């Protein structure tokens, strides 16, 4: 063979073979390099992608925790209902977008096809309720009131109802024990939105598509605790969705229960009495306007004086929170939020703002003491106070002569505070303010927590406002354009005001300070803010953050997180002054403006303190304020357009106290009838399995109307003169809107006290 010429080894061929070899190996190195790039350099990125590729999460929703009152009575819990839901994604796959299926469904459920379709459509700016506000990928509940019969029909004819499910589901329930509806405090739920899911995605507690989220009230504040954690089982699936294995399983953790300091029975009393007081006020005629009182809204707050815990909080008008369960119907939604609704969703105890009127005088008195005035000094209670051409009257044109600040509180003398407010304004430089004005009246209001949120554990609390210099400036800046446009020097009253405001609305004027000193004018407070202030006078000066939640207890009962009372400061006055205020407020009950409402009260056993207030609102009837406290509790009630403090709110507040302490009208205490003679400190009993004992509660039975006719009681005491006049007493018309009556200008007839 060796004689065969080496034809395969010519130089040309050899060179070309080398070229081929070089080409071949550069290709292999290219592959090697790319392999390194994908696997080593960017390997982690692909590992993550591979993970998300093949994991399917199956979600087992957690049962939402209950909200209980301080004895363990459920205010919000769950019940099992048959929920019929429609899957939009399935329906949209059909040729007619599921119309035929929904029409059939409407037939089974006894609804009109339109009703069903409206429930399933998605909300946007133009779509009126009802519409679906949640995720389009989540089954949309059509009804949660399906009967077993209907559910069976749907399930048996599954081929007729593609995309429709009928399953028993735990739904929220607000049982309103002893008719304590507590609506605004509890709040409500609605489905989670896409934005919220996106926002909470990387947080500790990410949302699930099917989640319901607390939108208001306790449901919102304690949403995370109540919601628990849905069980998530991650399955490894293949491309076709077949399960290959289970990677991890996080069992569902049911939501914790929230114990509140609310007492369902007291809450019921508060709601009932507030409503009754408003009904009564509507029968009274306002002497100023000549119309019946509107009493359009009202609120009452019952706090534990020494802890700031909320025992009851009622807001009127109210609504049934069960309307929200399973998606609110269009009609209900309009009823709750429409223009004519008077906004029952508002919690007026924390979201209702009004001028406080004379119940503000405790702040003014404290401000005077801080400014250097002697509490026990002598101040002239004249019948009126003049400023230039303007006369600020004591309304009854009656003076008490020189009296102490304590007595001025007791008889609610306006002129004493007018003068103090005016003097302080002058001391701060008057129309040409000093560089660093003392502003004691404004500073003290801020230090009492006004103009700021109380920190209550309820969402959307409003802060009210203190019309200090800064506010005046800001407000003028925001409004001067309108004022200057509408203002006329010789126009109507409103036009004149606008004209004046345009010129010098940015300055704090003498009239502003004078009005402000008796809680009138631009000042706004919430009932809860006033309750915190009065409870702090009761407890010696500590301003507590009011709390509704008392403890969060895990579903198994093993972990109890108590919510301890927290304070946000002390009153800016020394203990001695607090004591003097306390004494003065006590004499309001014993011999002052509220005494006629507390006839027969066992003052020696349960010392009662009170301050009445009647605030004027431009263009409206007066706001009734009544702030009271004992050693244990503080109750503040307000009724918008309800008349005077003691007149409209007095009897209701007394009735609440009597129910809590178990008193009758004569002041005899029967502890067996007392709902809550002492604040409850202990938590309800928790069983080993985590369930919480709920005691029997008895409904509130107010004394019937026939007992209410008690013409002989409540003679108006002689020393309670001042503003507490018989209805036939001459009423002073305010000279201008700038002038404000003192409190109790229009007291109702004393003999008409409701039980």
């Amino acid at each position, binding site marked *: 063979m060796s004689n*065969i010429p080496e034809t395969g080894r010519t130089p040309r061929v050899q060179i070309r073979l*080398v070229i081929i*070899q070089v080409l071949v*190996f550069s290709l292999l190195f290219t*592959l090697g390099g790319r392999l390194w790039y994908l696997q080593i350099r960017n390997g982690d990125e*692909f590992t993550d992608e591979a*993970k998300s590729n093949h994991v399917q999460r199956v979600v087992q929703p957690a049962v939402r925790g209950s909200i209980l009152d301080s004895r363990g009575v459920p205010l919000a819990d769950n019940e099992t209902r048959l929920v019929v839901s429609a899957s939009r994604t399935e329906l949209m796959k059909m040729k007619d977008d599921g119309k035929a299926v929904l029409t059939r469904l409407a037939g089974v459920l006894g609804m009109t096809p339109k009703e069903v379709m409206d429930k399933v459509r998605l909300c946007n700016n133009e779509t009126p309720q009802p519409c679906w506000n949640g995720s389009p990928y989540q089954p949309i509940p059509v009804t949660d009131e399906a009967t077993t019969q209907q559910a069976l029909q749907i399930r048996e004819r599954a081929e007729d109802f593609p995309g429709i499910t009928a399953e028993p589901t735990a739904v929220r329930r607000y049982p309103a024990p002893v008719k304590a509806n507590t609506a605004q405090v509890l709040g409500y739920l609605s489905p989670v939105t896409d934005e919220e899911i996106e926002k909470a995605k990387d947080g500790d507690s990410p949302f699930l598509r099917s989640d319901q989220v607390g939108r208001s009230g306790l449901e919102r504040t304690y949403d995370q605790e109540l919601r628990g954690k849905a069980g998530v089982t991650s399955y490894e699936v*293949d491309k076709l969705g077949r399960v290959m294995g289970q990677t991890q399983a996080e069992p569902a953790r049911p939501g914790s229960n929230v114990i509140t300091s609310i007492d369902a029975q007291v809450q019921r009393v508060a709601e009932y009495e507030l409503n009754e007081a408003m009904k009564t006020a509507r029968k009274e005629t306002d002497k100023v306007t000549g119309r019946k009182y509107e009493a359009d809204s009202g609120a009452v707050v019952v706090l534990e004086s020494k802890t700031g815990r909320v025992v009851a909080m009622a807001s009127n008008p109210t609504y049934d929170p069960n309307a929200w369960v399973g998606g609110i119907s269009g009609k209900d939604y309009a009823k709750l939020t429409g223009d004519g609704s008077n906004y029952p969703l508002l919690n007026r105890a924390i979201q209702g703002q009004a001028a406080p009127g004379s119940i503000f005088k405790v702040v003014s008195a404290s401000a005077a003491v801080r400014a250097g005035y002697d509490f026990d000094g002598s101040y002239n209670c004249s019948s009126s106070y003049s400023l230039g051409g303007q006369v600020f009257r004591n309304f009854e044109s009656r003076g008490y002569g020189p009296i102490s600040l304590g007595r001025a509180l007791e008889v609610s003398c306006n002129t004493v505070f007018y003068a103090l407010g005016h003097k302080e304004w002058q001391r701060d430089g008057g129309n040409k303010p000093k560089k660093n004005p003392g502003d004691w009246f404004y500073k003290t209001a801020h230090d009492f927590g006004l103009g700021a949120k109380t920190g209550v554990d309820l969402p959307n609390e409003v802060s009210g406002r203190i019309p200090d210099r800064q506010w005046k400036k800001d407000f003028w800046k925001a409004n001067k354009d309108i004022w200057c446009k509408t203002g006329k020097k010789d126009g109507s009253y409103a036009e004149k005001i606008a004209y004046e405001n345009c010129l010098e609305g940015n300055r704090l004027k003498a009239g502003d300070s004078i009005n402000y000193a008796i809680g009138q004018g631009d000042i706004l407070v919430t009932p809860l803010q006033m309750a915190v202030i009065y409870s702090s006078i009761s407890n010696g000066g500590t301003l507590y953050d009011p709390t509704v939640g008392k403890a969060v207890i895990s579903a198994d009962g093993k972990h109890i997180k108590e919510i301890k009372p927290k304070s946000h400061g002390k009153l800016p006055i020394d203990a001695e002054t607090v004591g003097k205020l306390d004494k003065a407020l006590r004499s309001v009950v014993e011999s002052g403006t509220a005494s006629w409402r507390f006839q027969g009260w066992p003052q020696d056993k349960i010392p009662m303190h009170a301050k009445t207030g009647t605030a004027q609102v431009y263009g409206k009837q007066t706001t009734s304020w009544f702030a009271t406290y004992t050693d244990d509790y503080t109750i503040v009630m307000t009724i918008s357009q309800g008349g005077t403090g003691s007149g409209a709110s007095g009897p209701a507040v007394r009735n609440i106290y009597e129910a809590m302490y178990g008193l009758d009208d004569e002041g005899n205490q029967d502890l067996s009838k007392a709902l809550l003679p002492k604040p409850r400190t202990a938590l309800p009993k928790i069983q080993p399995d985590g369930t919480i004992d709920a005691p029997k509660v008895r409904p509130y039975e107010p004394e019937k109307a026939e007992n209410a006719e008690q013409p002989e009681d409540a003679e108006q005491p002689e020393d309670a003169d001042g503003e507490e006049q018989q209805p036939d007493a001459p009423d002073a018309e305010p000279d201008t809107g700038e002038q404000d009556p003192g409190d109790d200008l229009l007291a109702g007839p004393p003999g008409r006290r409701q039980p």
Partner: protein
Amino acid sequence: MPTGAKSFSVSGYGPDRAGMWHRITARDSVMRRLDWPLLLSSLMLSFIGALLVWSATRNRTELNQGDPYYFLFRHALNSGIGVALMIATVWLGHRTLRGAVPVLYGISVVLVLLVLTPLGATINGAHAWIVISGGFSLQPSEFVKITIILGMAMLLAARVDAGDHPYPDHRVVAKSLGLAAIPMAIVMLMPDLGSVMVMAVIVLGVLLASGASNRWVLGLLGAGVLGAVLVAVLGLLDEYQINRFAAFANPELDPAGVGYNTNQARIAIGSGGLLGTGLFKGSQTTGQFVPEQQTDFVFTVAGEELGFVGAGFILFLLGVVLWRACRIARETTELYGTIVAAGIIAWFAFQSFENIGMTLGIMPVAGLPLPFVSYGGSSMFAVWVAIGLLQSIRVQKPITA
């Protein structure tokens, strides 16, 4: 397939059986002369391929007829038949086969033509198969690769090996190109563009190694580039076709089709990391996210489950095969052997590069198997016959020193 293979290798044109047998057994040196690195690397690749195919098909119940070992067994069987074909090829010897080339060529052309008749079948979107019976099917284009190499080598080397010319002249080159063009045109009609691409590269490799004038090589390359430019400029392709082609670089262009495949393949390989998830433990593989994973995308199994080390080892083994093939091409004394070896190098190198390159996202997606590793009888038989040819070239060259 075995039937097809048999008809392929058992040829009536072989030399006298007894004589050949005698010749081989008489040479006790044959075993020593075999290129062992080449053989062992090929065996190793087939073995790894068996594992990867097994891993990829274990769960694919709709493919494996409920038997997780179905593909493992078949792959091993194919490899065994392949090795037997290699032995047969070595026994026959490439020179002996040289005489049979016209017949083999004729048979392979007839076979590819059969694909275009009703006997042809479409499997996995490629109309490239002949279904024989009993679940056996044949992909004749795999064998055409061999016959093109052999046929061209025969033509190009005939005068040179006879010592008439130092290099093949133009007439011979043109003739050899014509010989290659006929089956390529038929395969193009199937259409099986991937195979045509491989054949074109084989033709280039063969021409280079034959010592044909540079004009032919450059002319062919130029024609290819010109054709591609013309197609692009004249807009002969629809946009979706271009998108499908370009989807390997940007999966967004064809997210449901090619883009999905490349994306999943890249995820599978990328998630392997250095050491891989371990055989049978890859989530992409067990989850069947990569389509055609036992055939065209078998490299992704290696990437995911064996990691950079395992996938790199496959590249290394392929490198060894190509290195030994290059050695054989350079060391053989006959131009015929050189051309055959070079054709095989071009075939293996390009097909491996295209197959692995597409799983790595640097080459467009084409349905080509990875030599030795991918599941598939025809392909397995063809590559082992090619190894047999290489071994035969080595064995039959005069012993040097």
